[in-house]
């Protein structure tokens, strides 16, 4: 403990809360409050209503939610498969080749998401691969953007994995494929589910690349939030944002439950 006197500690905590609450907690609370309101002209929102949520249960907003969920699930599964494969393959390479592979897979983090969207637009608006205007291009964009995170967390988990497990299994006569399936992947499961959760959350909130490429019939929730607030319907937008946060949180919670079950230590 750094500060020992009681008074000083209180002062530090007060300062902390004064900084922390308005900056981090307030924004989320404000969105939730606004989603139940129809106007905000005083200190507090007024005109309590559930109308915004009622609107979400039907029509375009509901379709946007489903679109986002489908996209996020598809993108995170693809990213998890690609990222895990690349991480496992990189482990068998020589150090220099491994560095190159890791750097290539981390590259999408450094490239602006908007540019990722633009590049897909440029590449797939022309033959041989004409994907512009299809849902697939949205899924591809999200996959490209989140694979780096899957790759990174699986690589880190592999580095932490004690090689003695793999060697013991091989010593007992298990072929590399059997070791991978029965030893390595089960031991990596907690990290894999964590990576899947992260990918899902990132994909759910992806806006930059999506704005560049979404087709009219595949409009994810963040775009819908933007479109709604852009035409001035701030409170309806807040309700959509709450739904977005809730869906993300629910999936993260479910994933962390799987993870506790899957961790054996």
């Amino acid at each position, binding site marked *: 403990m750094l500060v020992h006197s009681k008074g000083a500690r209180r002062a530090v905590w007060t300062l*902390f809360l004064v900084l922390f609450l308005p900056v981090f907690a307030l924004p989320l609370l404000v969105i939730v409050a606004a989603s139940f309101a129809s106007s905000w002209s005083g200190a507090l929102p007024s005109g309590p209503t559930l109308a915004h949520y009622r609107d979400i249960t039907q029509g375009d907003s509901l379709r946007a939610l489903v679109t986002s969920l489908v996209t996020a699930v598809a993108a995170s599964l693809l990213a998890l498969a690609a990222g895990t494969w690349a991480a496992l393959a990189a482990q068998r390479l020589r150090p220099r080749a491994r560095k190159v592979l890791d750097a290539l897979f981390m590259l999408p983090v450094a490239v602006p998401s908007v540019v990722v969207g633009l590049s897909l637009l440029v590449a797939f608006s022309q033959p041989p691969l004409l994907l512009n205007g299809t849902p697939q291009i949205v899924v591809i964009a999200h996959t490209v953007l989140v694979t780096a995170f899957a790759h990174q967390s699986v690589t880190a988990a592999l580095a932490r994995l004690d090689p003695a497990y793999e060697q013991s299994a091989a010593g007992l006569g298990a072929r590399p494929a059997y070791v991978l399936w029965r030893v390595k992947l089960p031991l990596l499961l907690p990290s894999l589910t964590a990576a899947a959760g992260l990918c899902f959350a990132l994909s759910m909130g992806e806006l930059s690349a999506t704005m560049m490429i979404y087709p009219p019939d595949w409009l994810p929730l963040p775009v819908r939030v933007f479109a709604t607030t852009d035409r001035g319907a701030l409170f309806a937008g807040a309700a959509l944002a709450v739904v977005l946060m809730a869906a993300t949180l629910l999936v993260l919670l479910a994933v962390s439950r799987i993870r506790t079950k899957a961790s054996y230590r």
Partner: protein
Amino acid sequence: MSRPGTPAPPRPTRERYRGERRKVSSALWALPPLLALGLVFLYPLVLVVRQSFTQDEGGPLSTAPYAQVFAEASFTDAFGNTVLIALGATAGCLLLGFALALVIAFVPFPGSRAIGRFIDVFLAFPSFLITLALLFVYGTAGLANGLWADATGAAGGPFDFLRTPWGVLLAEITYFTPFVMRPLLAAFSQVETGQLEAAASLGARPARIVRKVIWPEALPSLAAGGALVLVLTLNEFGIVLFTGAKDVVTLPVLIYTKAILDGDYTGACVVAVVNIALSLALYALYRAVAARAGGARTPSTGGDGHRARA
């Protein structure tokens, strides 16, 4: 399957596993993910670069598009805005993140662990939510101006900065500070309480302990976190888009405007190449700094680290 007692057939030499063959097969395993990445990421990037040098469809390569874009006032404005906002937001995140992480790690209070988890959740949300929230806090119809109106009886409040660069700056600091706090908290967890107690027992004041014991430990993570935030703020799109201000245009927004609203793909690609160059340079810096920060920590965590799992 050989029945017991039957002498096994001689092992063909091709079944022997040799180092060379193993290396080749390892490289083969790395190929499919590489090909996939190449198809959906590297190849499109190459096309963007090519397009940025193409004045007319099918025409020869030229640097004319660059000259054209660089001459536009909107580009120079966007470039300046991007760099200034990124630098400002990074500085703000570092200051705020260091202060908050310091309290969480070294002046713990009931619920400080919950705050750590809250930060993790915070990182899972998209950035534009912050701008949306700030609209309700500082917007023309919102908390702060509403409070002012209630208190003074005036028709409106004095807060009207959301559509200026300051609004973007505030939103970015809010959103990206946790990116600084996370590595810092990890680094602080490595500082032994015994070290702090020893320093305190020797009569060191908190300010001195922070400077002499905690600061050196925090520096690598602070540098790595700062570099990451710099890259992320350079590339941030959602926050700026949601602000909806006509005069706050950054490079990513300019790319969006040119490509989607104006249909000027070549111009968009030129801006994109500039943006990529800027952020790749910074990202390389981040990797170098992060590797050094990681390397500095390895001796204490490596080695017997495996033991804990057994």
